[in-house]
């Protein structure tokens, strides 16, 4: 600890504390622009100059470490004069037209100019003008306003992992710009808007649509990936205008991924693919807008009649993993009330052999914040950067501090983090690769291995990964979305459990969706004789109840799902959105509220219970889904549907409002390890970041990003040669598996991707262009179109 004096008050701070940090701890504000607690120190804005006793010159508080006995004056005449002088310099070339600047009212420069600026400028010369840059569909530029603090540059380099911005030219001609003809394509790019202390970088979708003081600020929780980022949703006239991060060091820190920040545009979407605002019933092949009671009666009748005539088991419910805990719980209760066990929210999962063998709800296996403390990490089966942008960011930071991160996966995407080792192979080989690591670790530890691994021989990469893991003292193994969706997910889980056991490591699942843990807690999974998501589609049901799900895009096998919906006698769909597919196959469309218009709870991947309120009133006649389900339960005369509030539902499910849910356990009992080989061309299906859920799919700005390009058939050079195709040509991809007779073909552009293993082709899922191809994990045929 260091003792020093700050503005006359004695203080104690830990070694290495910077003056600005110490001051902020003590509640003393030091004006600054370039300093940001999550970024490296640049000390270039000079706004934080303070007086340090015995120092001949004012010192930048952001770059001056506290030393024992130091005396710092942050508001002395010398300090304030220095700060005011810097402010004068900052303003000479900065446009003084705050009323027409989008940042006006939330501008650090404007705010500090009130305190440190003068009422008139001594600068009478021409001002600098800087041409604007095209950074892509999300970030708008007004570069004349830039004060060259370089926060955005440091963000892209240090947090996002790729230097997509830089400062070119010298002196007052210096400009922040992307590389020539490039845009900023990071999945975290929106954070530079928050970081920019002036109006140089602003939100393109939000730009000039409202003033910050006109907006209501409400807390909410991100409905996208399993992290559960905390949000500030800003609304005006009952409309979501903008989403900003709510700082939570335990979860999203001060960041948001672009999906979380810009998906709100989908909340205001219109048209045939936009918001569903009125209950609709299909009669004689024609859609009619009806009153709620008519629609609900129709739905209740359909459910009751089919249950009566064909048995309740002929009804199946598919619930979106992005639905709230309350919605999931009431769906499950409704289904069980009418006597059906057929409910599932694990729509993209294909291996359900673990059901009944789990010791608890699968989860991250640790707190999110604990990821940063791991010293050895193995990630298995994950498009980490796009599936979990902020967890990837956490690993990026810890890798910089020396944590060894290794990867076993089917695609060699650039994670923009330093990997210690990586083993990339066809999807069917992932269990074998993981088994090799288990074997190698067992050998290093001198431990016995599962007899099922007798024939496994560890390769060099597996040995390298094993050596790394064995040398760690705080090891974590993370199974990504790809591993969870894998047809041998149970084997991957069991192997990971063995590996963790050998290492004394933590292991867990990176939750794919906002309620991947909550679905288990809400019992939105089939018990006993019920059918899981795959079974419900493979053996089609008479009636489907859909909650927030778009089966053709959200399920493991889109073609199969679409066929199942089409053959059903009734599809009752509770959704915030319309779609052409739904208008085609559904019979009742009940408009329900998206996360922004309902109260509810998400249980994030670490088991944290995060409840939120509606931030706006429901759009049109939409109603919160928990209320719709309650009424449906009442109409079906089921017991226990007398809820007055969503909190009541939550409290019933969780037994109150704990900070974390109980019953989390990743262990399996009695799962046999199977190491099978596959023949033929294997498909590697990623779920592109902005296609992953119904809301993101409807956000125009996100759909204009580089991450949202139409799916292609990505192959290695060897594969292209084998097919006699050159990159850029069209190929015809056919479903090679016999699982789904409805699966069709897709014409896609072939693309060279050296990160795809040989004899594989990478084709994104969750997109209309590829939904017809069938299962995400399957062998396919590829030929010249």
């Amino acid at each position, binding site marked *: 600890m260091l003792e020093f004096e700050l503005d006359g008050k004695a203080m104690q701070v830990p070694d290495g504390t910077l003056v600005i940090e110490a001051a902020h701890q003590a509640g003393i504000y030091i004006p600054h622009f370039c300093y940001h607690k999550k970024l490296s120190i640049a000390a270039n804005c000079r706004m934080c100059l303070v007086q340090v006793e015995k120092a001949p010159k004012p010192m930048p508080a952001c770059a001056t470490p506290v030393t024992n006995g130091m005396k710092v004056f942050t508001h002395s005449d010398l300090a304030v004069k220095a700060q005011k002088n*810097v402010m004068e310099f900052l303003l000479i070339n900065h446009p003084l037209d705050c009323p027409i600047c989008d940042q006006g009212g939330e501008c650090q420069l404007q705010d500090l100019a009130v305190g440190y600026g003068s009422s008139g400028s001594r600068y009478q010369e021409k001002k600098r003008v800087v041409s604007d840059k095209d950074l892509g569909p999300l970030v708008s530029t007004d570069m004349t306003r830039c004060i060259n603090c370089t926060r955005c540059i440091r963000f892209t380099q240090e947090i996002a992992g790729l230097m997509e911005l830089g400062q070119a030219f010298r002196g007052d001609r*210096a400009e922040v710009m992307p590389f020539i003809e490039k845009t900023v394509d990071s999945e975290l790019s929106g954070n530079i808007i928050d970081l920019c202390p002036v109006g140089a970088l602003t939100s393109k979708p939000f730009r000039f649509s409202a003033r910050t003081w006109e907006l209501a600020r409400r807390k909410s929780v991100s409905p996208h990936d399993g992290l559960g980022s905390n949000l500030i949703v800003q609304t005006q006239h009952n409309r979501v205008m903008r989403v900003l991060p709510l700082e939570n060091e335990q979860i999203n820190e001060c960041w948001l991924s672009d999906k979380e920040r810009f998906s709100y545009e989908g909340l205001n979407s219109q048209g045939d693919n936009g918001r569903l605002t009125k209950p609709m019933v299909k009669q004689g092949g024609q859609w009619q807008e009806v009153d709620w009671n008519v629609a609900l009666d129709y739905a209740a009748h359909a459910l009751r009649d089919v249950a009566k005539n064909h048995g309740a088991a002929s009804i199946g419910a598919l619930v979106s993993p992005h639905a709230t805990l309350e919605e999931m719980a009431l769906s499950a209760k409704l289904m069980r009330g009418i006597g059906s066990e057929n409910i599932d929210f694990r729509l993209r999962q294909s291996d359900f052999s673990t059901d009944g063998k789990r010791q608890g709800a699968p989860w991250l296996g640790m707190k999110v914040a604990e990821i940063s403390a791991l010293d050895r990490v193995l990630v298995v089966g994950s498009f980490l950067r796009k599936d979990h942008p902020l967890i990837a960011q956490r690993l990026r930071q810890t890798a910089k501090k020396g944590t060894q991160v290794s990867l076993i996966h089917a695609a060699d995407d650039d994670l923009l983090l330093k990997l210690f080792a990586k083993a990339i192979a066809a999807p069917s080989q992932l269990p074998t690769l993981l088994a090799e690591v288990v074997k190698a670790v067992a050998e290093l530890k001198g431990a016995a291995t599962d007899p099922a691994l007798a024939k496994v021989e560890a390769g060099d990469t597996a040995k390298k990964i094993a050596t790394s893991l064995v040398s760690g003292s705080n090891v974590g193994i993370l199974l990504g979305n790809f591993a969870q969706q894998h047809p041998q997910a149970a084997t991957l889980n069991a192997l990971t459990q063995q590996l963790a056991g050998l290492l004394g490591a933590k292991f867990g699942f990176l939750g794919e969706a906002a309620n991947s843990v909550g679905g288990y807690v809400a019992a939105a999974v089939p018990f006993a004789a019920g059918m899981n998501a795959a079974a419900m589609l493979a053996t089609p049901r008479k009636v489907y109840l859909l909650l927030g799900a778009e089966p053709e895009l959200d399920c493991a096998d889109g073609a199969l799902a679409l066929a199942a919906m089409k053959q059903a006698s009734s599809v009752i769909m509770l959704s915030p959105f319309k779609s052409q597919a739904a208008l085609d196959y559904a019979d009742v469309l009940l408009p329900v509220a998206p996360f922004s218009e309902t109260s509810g709870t998400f249980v994030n991947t670490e088991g944290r219970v995060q409840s939120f309120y509606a931030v706006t009133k429901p759009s049109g006649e939409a109603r919160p889904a928990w209320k719709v389900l309650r009424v449906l339960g009442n109409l079906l005369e089921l017991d226990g549907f007398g809820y007055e509030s969503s909190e009541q539902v939550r409290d019933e499910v969780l037994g109150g409002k704990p900070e974390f849910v109980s019953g989390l356990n990743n262990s399996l009992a009695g799962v046999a390890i199977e190491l099978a080989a596959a023949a033929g061309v294997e498909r590697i299906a990623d779920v592109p970041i902005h296609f992953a859920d119904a809301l993101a799919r409807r956000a125009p700005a996100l759909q204009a990003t580089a991450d949202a390009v139409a799916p292609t058939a990505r192959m290695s050079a060897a594969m292209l040669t084998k097919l006699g195709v050159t990159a850029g040509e069209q190929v015809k991809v056919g479903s090679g598996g016999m699982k789904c007779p409805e699966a069709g073909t897709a014409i896609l552009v072939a693309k060279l991707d050296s990160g795809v293993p040989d004899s594989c082709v990478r084709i994104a899922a969750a997109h209309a262009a590829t939904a017809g191809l069938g299962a995400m994990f399957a062998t396919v045929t590829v030929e010249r179109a």
Partner: protein
Amino acid sequence: MALLQAINPLLSAGWQRDGHEWRLENDSGWRLKDYEARGGYQSLKKILAAKMSPDDVIAEVKKSVLRGRGGAGFPTGLKWSFMPKGSPEKYIVCNTDEGEPGTFKDRDIQRFDPHAVIEGMIIAAHAVGAARGYNYIHGEIYELYQRFEEALDEARAAGYIGQNILGSGLSFELFAHQGWGAYICGEETGLLESIEGKKGQPRYKPPFPANVGLYGKPTTINNTETFASIPYILRDGGDAFLNLGKPNNGGTKLFSVSGHVNRPGNFEVPMGTPFPKLLEMAGGMRGGRKLKAVIPGGSSAPVLPADIIMDCTLDYDSIAKAGSMFGSGAVIVMDETVCMVQALERLSWFYYEESCGQCTPCREGTGWLHKVIQRIEHGHGRPEDLDLLNDVSNNIMGRTICALGDAAALPVLSFTKHFKSEFEYHIEHKKCLVPREIQKAGSIFHTRLMAGATC
């Protein structure tokens, strides 16, 4: 002789040129055999043969009171002693970015005596324990960069650079690195950034390069002339070197004299030589005109009026006492034909042009200074402008990451202080105090043009 004149020449003793043409191919004496013939690499051999410890080498350099020749004048031995002992990866860097207007001594050292720099760097590498070194040579002297590469090849072939130098167990690799002409890359940390392949921008200090330098490793950076002096210090001993100069100002120094003198060029004189002596060696004032002012240490040093500079001796202490800086030894002489407003306009343009743009006061302030001075020069000055210049300069001074801010402010402060009346005259009368015809008479360019020269 390449050097125009010298007193007790040390550094320039071996500089040779055949014929009268100032062409590179006429240079002789820079090759390894010539350097060895005049006793080159003997200091290195002596150190290695005697197994002189790094501490002893540093002690000898400290004794010589060699002060950094790049401009700051920091004692070299002391700087070397800051390098942490025992860390495995350390670097040594030679700063040949010589960008200070008026300075051209390092150019001639590189031209006539590159092996002295190499030998100095090898000795320094031994002293600080560095296994790798770089010589950063600015872009405008590309031919000399090529020459340095040739010299490196010679030294490497002779076993002075590489593994196990002369069987001593010492290993050292030395590389040349070409700059591209940015003034800021002469600032030591900007130079390191540039070597690392980044935009040349100074780093905030601390940490100093001795702790976190090139590629984040401990690094010693010295000026070319500093390194070139090292072999002589080790040859003759620290005391002998110190005694060439005066206390606290050891050795001889190269001065680059430019401006209105009859014989502009490099001169080597002992530290403490009276300024009038240097002026006399440079052939005195051109056309017998009256001395008006001198910038004694490169363009960033405050200007001194004739009466003050004529009483100075050429050493750190005397010039500092007079209110300026010894700097890099670039002596810019101005006679009575100079309009000080115009001179300052040109100087301020340089700093405006060369500010790296990183920190606010310098990025914004250098442009402001230039614009106001330009306004005055062009007859649009306002009465409040002198106070404004003073304020802006003072607001830049001491508020920036590196010394460029000070370098931009000091000329403005000194010009407006010592020649205030000229600035006031300019503002009031919208023209120069020194009539245009007189200014033209003093301009070499103009006189040559009048004499019928085509350019």
